[in-house]
């Protein structure tokens, strides 16, 4: 028997439906078909073989031939204002007697019907899962179906060839999606070596840093005293600014810089007191109570002295205290959030904390005929893909002429 050709071959570059670097490379090397030096049959043949290597290569050619439809769906966006104002007779009106206008109407862009040749395949469950970014390749999506990780309308669907109907909701097990789209866990020999080298370098730098820092640190320890009210006030202003920032942010937001900045200022503010040591104020709650107590004592103590009575009392008003408390609460929630949703987990089948796999961004798009909710890894197949002026919804990497040739290959009379 003939040996099966390689799936990703550098000799015959084929674009496949997956997020691999080979696919990316062959995408970058794709060229429009050579239409001058080859016969029409040759052109059609190679167009067919190239497109079929991408579209539904897991389906037998016979099965695909039965799926093929020569009627391609399309839509035209309509303007309701135009429909209301005109009844269409103005287009049929006579052109004589000066009714002609000089200005040409804007021609709408061409509707690329020929890029839609493979639209029935987009209806398949496995392809839809891949298009919804729940699997890194169609083959993997197929495996998810077969392994019973996919539900359609809440019922298990083990058939990858199930044809989705408009309005069907499909969902994939979130842990499998995270596995499929996450960076791979890897502990190869080279990775181990690299990790060891990095650790050694880090240790060395730490030693160096330790050798240089201790005297400086001792100095700061020595210099640390009870802060003056001016200093305190300045720090409190910075702190409250950060509090505002944090309060504007919602928990789990993309931008974590504000939380980080807040934590920094809190540390700085606490660093003013010499009684504070890193061990006693490691948790957020103790940090908060420490700050509150010390500020309260500072504001209470100098009240007897007439000179500095004004500044300390204005240091921490009750509203400000409340705000500070909510900010701390938010900070706590945020840390809990990250630790709950994206924590280091040795038992997970993907690299933790989770991050997208390499080259995923180059392939990440969701076509309009799907509506996806990534949080629950579920999607709804809204309608069949359509062509519209200037846009075809079937994601195909090939030139329009290739699509045309492939469509013509399957059009032939049999």
């Amino acid at each position, binding site marked *: 028997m003939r040996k099966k050709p390689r799936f990703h071959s550098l000799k015959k570059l084929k674009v496949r439906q997956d997020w691999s670097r080979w696919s990316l490379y062959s995408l970058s090397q794709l060229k429009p078909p050579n239409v001058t030096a080859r016969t029409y049959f040759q052109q059609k043949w190679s167009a067919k073989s190239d497109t079929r290597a991408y579209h539904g290569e897991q389906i037998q050619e016979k099965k695909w031939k039965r799926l093929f439809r020569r009627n391609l769906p399309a839509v035209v*966006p309509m303007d309701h204002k135009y429909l209301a104002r005109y009844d269409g007779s103005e287009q049929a009106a006579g052109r004589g007697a000066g009714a002609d206008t000089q200005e040409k109407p804007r021609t709408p862009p061409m509707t690329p019907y020929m890029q839609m040749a493979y639209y029935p395949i987009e209806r398949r469950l496995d392809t839809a899962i891949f298009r919804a970014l729940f699997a890194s390749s169609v083959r993997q999506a197929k495996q998810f179906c077969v392994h019973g990780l996919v539900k359609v309308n809440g019922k298990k669907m083990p058939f990858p060839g199930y044809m989705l109907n*408009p309005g069907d909701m499909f969902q994939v097990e979130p842990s499998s999606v995270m596995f499929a789209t996450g960076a791979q866990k890897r502990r190869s020999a080279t990775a181990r070596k690299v990790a060891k080298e990095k650790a050694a370098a880090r240790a060395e730098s730490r030693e160096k840093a330790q050798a240089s820092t201790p005297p400086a640190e001792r100095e700061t320890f020595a210099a640390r005293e009870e802060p003056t009210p001016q200093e305190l006030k300045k720090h409190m202003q910075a702190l409250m600014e950060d509090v505002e920032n944090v309060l504007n942010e919602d928990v789990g937001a993309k931008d974590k810089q504000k939380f980080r900045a807040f934590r920094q200022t809190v540390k700085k503010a606490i660093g003013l007191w010499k009684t504070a040591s890193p061990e006693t104020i490691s948790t957020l709650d103790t940090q908060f109570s420490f700050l509150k107590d010390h500020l309260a004592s500072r504001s209470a103590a100098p009240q007897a002295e007439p000179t500095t009575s004004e500044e300390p009392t204005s240091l921490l008003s009750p509203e400000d205290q409340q705000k500070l408390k909510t900010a701390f609460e938010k900070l706590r929630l945020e840390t809990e959030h990250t630790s709950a949703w994206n924590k280091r987990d040795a038992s997970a089948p993907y690299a933790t904390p989770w991050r997208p796999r390499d080259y995923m961004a180059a392939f990440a798009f969701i076509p309009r005929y799907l509506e996806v909710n990534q949080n629950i890894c579920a999607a709804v197949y809204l309608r069949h893909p359509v062509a519209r002026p200037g846009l075809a919804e079937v994601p195909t990497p090939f030139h329009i002429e290739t699509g045309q040739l492939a469509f013509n290959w399957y059009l032939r009379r049999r």
Partner: protein
Amino acid sequence: MPPRLRSSNLSPTVASCPPARPQSISQPARISREFSQSSCRQITLRRRKFYEWLNGPGRALKQPLPNSTNYLGAYDRYGNLVRASPGWQAKRTPKRNQDPDKESGLTEKAENEGEKPEGQESADDLEMAVRRQENAEKEKKKKAKGEEEDRLPPETVEDLRPFPLNKYFRSQPVLSEELREAIYQRVKRDGASVSLASVEFGVSNERVGAVVRLKQMEKEWIAQGKILAIPYSKAVLEMLPTTPRIDPSLPKNKGKRPITHEPINDLIVHPATRQQLFVPVAESRHFTRVDAGKAFDNKLLPADDRIPHPELVQVERELAAGLSFEKRRELAEERLAKEQEKKKKEEERKQAELASLKTVPQRRWDFVFKDVSVDSVGRNGRDPKGVGWRYGFPHEDRKKGQVKIPTKVEA
């Protein structure tokens, strides 16, 4: 014949792309193998080129760009991001200063273009404009904060092409989380109808329904304490272009319209209209859309009735006819009443159908009894609507080649 002289083991000079010589070529090119006289340069050359590309131009695609899409179409042959100013490139590779003039000029242009999203011709232009505006705003905010971070200019149409060769496909924006939540709240809490929400948010009818369904499920999951794929969702939404939510009720969004996500009045191209027709019509005749539809197919309705939002056309027509506000409201209320009547009737019909079924609950499955008529088999007894075993009409489900994959799953 004497053995052929082996060529020296010099590595051949390969024309490499300027920005980066590959760091890791897996192995030096082997000119020949011990067991064979023929060269195997071809294979290694290909592999070398592959790695050269991967470590050169392809390197930028490995990781997602922060706050931007990262598609192949946005790069040129040498792996330079086309839309980025030279300063950005320089900053990304080594630390270097960039010229602020060009950057500010770009943002200025983007701002001017994004001023009026509703003035654009097609919905696609509109969405581009909206994205531009959004990014420009973000940029302004950053500038105001005085951060010394130079940002990428917003994407153009070319930058959103994951497949550079296919000019007719691009990555279109998806709904952002806030917009989904807003749609859900509008439908579930405020009780707006699907078509109303669709018009308000510029999202098609089906998508509104899907968003509500998915959001509902998400809330159920949260209530049950199931684990959501939050990191995945965040990462994916950051990689994709998204349609932001603009809440016109907020003071900062005064005078802005909510962004249209997609065209909502899509007319499906009817197969009967695919052919070209030449119909001679008298010049004196008032030949309208309805007549044109009849010419193609007797049952073909005009576009006004076939679009998803015919009520918009109706409203516009009343407006053009110059009806007073009270009159228009009266008409609208009439229409609403009619619609509700229809809905009620449908609901009643469904209830009656359910009531006619007799259900006997069992341990795992329920028995459902339904009245049938023997006459449903038709005259020749071969109608597929007929029930039960019929003589001479065998079941084919055990035959070879019968597909057992279900064709639909009840929701």
